[in-house]
């Protein structure tokens, strides 16, 4: 009984740490987005609040909290309130199975870095959760009693369902290679060959491209931000949202971006590992310093990817809806299937 208490306490503390880090990272992503978009457009970007405008995201959040929360007439009040909660909750819940570093030892306790990083179903859980994310957006669109919201919600559900297939197939190729659903195993497997440099991006370049594209579509980011296409749909599914409810959608978008980057990092870019053994720079396996260093490496990789997301958003124009569907069903799906077949032949060939 006592042991269960300690385990749940440990999980609770880790959950609180990861949750606050995730929300902080959303704030940093917002700042990065505004700064990078400004630089790409030859502007300066936020520079008034705090040094270099670093406090801008906090001010934004304060503004959102202070704003009036409007529920439109004829909206389904319960679902209108529930939708942003679903979006945000799903974005956060994925982090339950994401490991951030190798386990560390304190005394004779082994502490896993991550809330439940050794879960056998890691990837399946992530896929399930991102699928539930559709509900948040579709319900937001439907319950707002607004045609633009509804169109945005419908678009996003069609888009997410179409791209989830290719994403699943790309992940399946990775699973074939590593032989495990657990994210820790996948990372360790990438690290244990070729002197730590057998990142999946090198043996699965096509899969990486497919996964990257579908990740853009899943997070509703440009060039696939049709659900919130300003020119056509005002603001899409969140047209009728204001105040902190809109803030939750906003937060969920950036949290999703960080989550997608984390998954790409784990699956294709070797997670928290660098292409040499940690003992090469004098760090022993299992010490807390190594855990910290690995976490920082992981965070840097995530942020480089987040910056890539932002960079692409301010470069590539939005797809038209028929182009989006054609890309999803006629290009990515056959490519993902081809990739899966080639990978399975490869795995079969090497194993025999």
């Amino acid at each position: 009984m006592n042991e269960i208490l300690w385990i749940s306490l440990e999980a609770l503390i880790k959950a609180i740490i990861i949750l606050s880090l995730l929300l902080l990272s959303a704030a940093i992503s917002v700042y990065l987005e505004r700064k990078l978009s400004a630089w790409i457009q030859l502007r300066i970007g936020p520079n008034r609040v705090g040094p270099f405008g670093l406090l801008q995201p906090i001010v934004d959040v304060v503004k959102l909290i202070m704003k009036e929360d409007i529920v439109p007439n004829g909206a389904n009040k319960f679902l209108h309130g529930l939708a942003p909660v679903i979006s945000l909750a799903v974005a956060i819940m994925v982090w339950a199975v994401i490991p951030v570093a190798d386990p560390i030892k304190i005394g004779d306790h082994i502490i896993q870095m991550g809330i439940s990083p050794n879960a056998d179903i890691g990837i399946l859980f992530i896929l399930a959760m991102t699928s539930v994310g559709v509900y948040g957006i579709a319900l937001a669109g439907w319950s707002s009693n607004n045609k633009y919201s509804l169109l945005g919600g419908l678009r996003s559900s069609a888009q997410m369902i179409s791209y989830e297939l290719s994403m699943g197939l790309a992940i399946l190729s990775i699973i074939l290679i590593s032989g495990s659903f657990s994210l820790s195993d996948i990372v360790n497997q990438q690290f244990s060959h070729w002197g730590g440099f057998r990142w999946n991006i090198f043996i699965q370049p096509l899969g990486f491209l497919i996964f990257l594209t579908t990740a853009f579509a899943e997070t509703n980011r440009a060039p696939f931000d049709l659900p919130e296409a300003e020119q056509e749909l005002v603001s899409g599914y969140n047209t009728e949202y204001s105040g902190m409810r809109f803030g939750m959608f906003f937060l969920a978008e950036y949290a999703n971006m960080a989550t997608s980057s984390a998954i790409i990092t784990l699956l294709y870019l070797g997670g928290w590992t660098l292409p040499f053994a940690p003992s090469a720079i004098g760090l022993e396996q299992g010490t807390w310093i190594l855990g910290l260093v690995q976490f920082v490496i992981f965070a840097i990789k995530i942020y480089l990817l987040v910056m890539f997301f932002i960079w692409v958003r301010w470069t590539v124009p939005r797809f038209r809806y028929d182009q989006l569907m054609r890309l999803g069903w006629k290009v990515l799906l056959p490519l993902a299937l081809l990739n899966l077949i080639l990978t399975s032949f490869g795995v079969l060939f090497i194993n025999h």
Partner: protein
Amino acid sequence: MNIKHNIESDRLTFWEKIYIPEIAKGLASTFKTMFQPKFTRSYPEEKMVPSPSFRGRPVLVQEEEGGRCVACGLCSRVCPALAIEVQPAETDKEKERFPKVFEINMLRCIFCGFCEEVCPEEAIVMSQDYELVFTSQEDAILPKEKLLVPIKNLQDRLEWLRQYR
């Protein structure tokens, strides 16, 4: 003529249809842009210095012995927005007439510069002052005291007028 054979996707080459090299080109372009000098001016710290041809707030020229204005009322007559009000008065000095009241309503002024063009004494000119903020409608009606500007601050504009008017 068959329009079908001139659709854009037929004109693209294979590499353009693949789309990824084109995206890479676009990314390279935006990446270069990121490090170019910025276009934005940090306004309150660094201010724009307008050229002499700039038409800012209309002001009255003030010389050592007083204003140049003789209150002929031409500016008030020509003003298309009816922003200027002049009431003349007389003195015993060499310059007999002077404006008792000279008001420009900055809420009405459209910065057309007609007053400056029509003025026979070169007494009203457009300055380079563009920071026009008022907290009430009464404040926006500028009296004579606020309109008078020493002549040495207006040399650029007067020089420009002599050359181009």
